[in-house]
């Protein structure tokens, strides 16, 4: 995925095969996985120390988000009114194209030559970096992971750990080239030094940038503020140092009150990284007022639809509750076998398998809702109770209803079901199949190549049946 906003999701199957075969990538991901899973488990277990119960808290979080999604228009009006009253400007964007146009307009109005960016998945939805560069404005990603993938000319492969697919050696090579120094052998002990090096380079960008672009984890309706949950401090720099601050975020990110925000904050960092609270939590309200020592002269919110409003009130509205913690992908066996790039668009993992078809067109991401073993772990860990497997399943049904499944698959399923509805015929077929499979076994007693299901035997043997079916044996025993 090179250009953000351009979906490659149609090619998931091909990309999945490549991802699964990439042993180096898998090793990198498998090292990261237990960290995510273990830290979250510890974070959730730690709730008890504060006298909190996960199930009750998650119901509370679900309710807060449900309340917003049910009356999205009302909350957005309140937010807009309060944000404008506090001195910010609020703009609306229907899609990526409108995001790009708004940002370029603002940049032109304020004579912007360089923009520093804190993480914003919405800017990925818009392919904003490419648009800025084309307009002669240099976008600099300042989240360390985003900085790394930007240097590599890639898109983030994870929503909170954008460079999780990169090894330290790959990062070292990128840094050496960008920072104009010879590459050195590196081990994990060198990570602090490498981070310091990036920080020094980024500091110059913070000081020389004209515009800061950030996302927002939440929009607080009560106060008209953007809430930013970060670990690196770059968010503070991006939102306070440049003259202009642009917040780009989805319209569904609203929470009614600060109290609601603090409830959600009990689960967001714990679900994401296992932290009880992130290193930085910022509430950004309005622009710099007279007497303020710091802050942007101009704050603009760009509130983005890009397919969200159409989900409200539908059977997929549950997905609008998502608070982008990444727990679903961190616990997904499929995600951690492939990495995020295989998913072909901005959002990977189970949440991406639901969002990508909904945002980019059901017919444009046919494989994604099937890219799940149905294990259900994503739903088990979701802090706002989104029934991800149910939503993926529902998308599969919609594909069938719209006639979008391939003919061969539909035909095979129909033929099989027709037979399964006719026991006598089915028994005969099963008897033949059992013997055929038995016959396919080689000297080792196993099947190495199965023409009917090459996907199975590409990486696995098949232990064949003994030769007679259960019902065949059972019938003959009853007779005897």
């Amino acid at each position, binding site marked *: 995925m090179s250009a953000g906003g351009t979906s490659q999701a149609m090619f998931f*199957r091909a990309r*999945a*095969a490549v*991802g*699964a*075969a990439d042993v180096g990538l*898998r090793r990198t991901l498998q090292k990261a996985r237990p960290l995510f899973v273990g830290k979250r488990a510890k974070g959730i277990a730690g709730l008890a120390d504060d006298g909190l119960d996960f199930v009750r808290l998650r119901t509370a979080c679900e309710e807060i988000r449900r309340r917003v999604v049910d009356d999205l228009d009302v909350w957005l009006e309140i937010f807009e009114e309060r944000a404008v009253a506090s001195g910010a400007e609020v703009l609306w964007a229907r899609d990526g194209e409108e995001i790009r146009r708004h940002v370029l307009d603002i940049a032109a109005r304020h004579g912007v030559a360089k923009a520093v960016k804190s993480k914003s998945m919405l800017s990925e939805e818009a392919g904003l970096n490419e648009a800025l560069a084309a307009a002669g404005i240099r976008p600099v990603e300042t989240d360390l992971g985003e900085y790394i993938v930007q240097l590599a000319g890639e898109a983030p492969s994870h929503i909170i750990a954008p460079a999780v697919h990169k090894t330290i050696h790959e990062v070292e090579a990128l840094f050496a080239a960008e920072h104009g120094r010879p590459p050195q052998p590196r081990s994990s002990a060198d990570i602090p030094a490498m981070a310091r090096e990036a920080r020094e380079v980024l500091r110059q960008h913070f000081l020389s940038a004209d515009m800061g672009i950030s996302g927002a984890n939440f929009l607080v309706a009560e106060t008209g503020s953007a809430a930013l949950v970060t670990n690196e401090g770059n968010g503070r720099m991006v939102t306070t140092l440049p003259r202009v601050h642009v917040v780009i975020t989805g319209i569904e990110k609203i929470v009614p009150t600060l109290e609601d925000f603090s409830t959600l904050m009990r689960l967001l960092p714990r679900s994401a990284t296992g932290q009880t609270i992130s290193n930085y939590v910022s509430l950004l309200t309005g622009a710099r007022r007279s007497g303020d020592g710091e802050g942007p002269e101009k704050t603009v919110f760009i509130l983005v639809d890009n397919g969200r409003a159409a989900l409200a009130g539908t059977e997929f509205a549950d997905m609008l509750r998502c608070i982008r913690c990444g727990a679903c992908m961190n616990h997904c*066996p*499929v995600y951690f*076998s*492939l990495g995020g790039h295989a998913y072909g668009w901005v959002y990977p993992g189970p949440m991406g398998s639901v969002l990508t078809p909904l945002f980019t067109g059901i017919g444009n991401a046919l494989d994604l809702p*099937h*890219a*799940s*073993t*149905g*294990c*259900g*772990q994503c739903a*088990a860990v979701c802090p706002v109770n989104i029934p991800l497997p149910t939503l993926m*399943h529902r*998308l*599969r*049904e919609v*594909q*069938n209803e719209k006639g979008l*499944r391939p003919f061969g*698959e*539909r035909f095979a*399923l*129909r033929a*099989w*079901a027709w037979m*399964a*509805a006719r*026991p006598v015929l*089915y028994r005969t077929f*099963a008897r033949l*199949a*059992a013997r055929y*499979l038995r016959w396919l076994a080689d000297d080792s007693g*196993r099947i190495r190549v199965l023409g009917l*299901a*090459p*996907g*199975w035997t*590409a*990486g*696995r*043997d*098949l*232990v*064949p*049946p*003994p030769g007679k*079916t*259960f*019902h065949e*044996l*059972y019938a003959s025993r009853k007779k005897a």
Partner: protein
Amino acid sequence: MRLALYVTCLADLMRPSVGFAALRLLEATGAEVVVPAGQTCCGQPAWTAGNRGLAAELARKAVAELEGYDRVVIPSGSCADQVRNVYPQLLADDPVWAARAAAVAASTRELAQFLADEAGLAEMPGEFSGTVTYHDSCKGLRNLGIKRQPRELLARVRGLSLEEMADCEECCGFGGAFAVRFGETSTAIVDRKCDAVAAAGVDAVVGGDLGCLLNIEGRLRRRGDTATRVLHLAEVLAGPEAE
């Protein structure tokens, strides 16, 4: 008590011994056990593929075959989940079938659930000299809450000791059609499971779902492990069949 044994299409075709082991265990409880004629497949493949119509058709067929028993017992968490949790919502809007599906769902138990929670079989017919590890299948674990039951039952098998492997609750990568459609990905996932099995250093890996077992067994063999046995819980509990 009158029980219906739903053998499952996979056990029927791929490993009849699972069906017979379940049969012996259920008979050992002293109940009258019937293998309803005409049973084929619960329809889960159609459901998973997103074909509601075909899934409903096969659900109605299974409901008709399985109603009227005190308990329907299924040696598979994923098929039991289909009958218990999916049938009622699949047929909810069908005025004729909704109540019948709900009744069958209410009487349906996965095998380990039935044996541990309701049957009170103090001693298992099977014997096993060695160490086993247990793989928790996803649907059984997360949709039916099966966790304690198979372990309780294994503890009642003479000679057997249980050694838990790392991440025993993690998916093996089977997922029905997923295993074939996304073969490489499925293989990458099951490789992790095989690593965990190998690290546990056991004589056998045991599970309650034949799909997972075929997947794990197939990958273990392809990796060159021909020693670790891969057994269905019913086979271990019931022991080999007397000739």
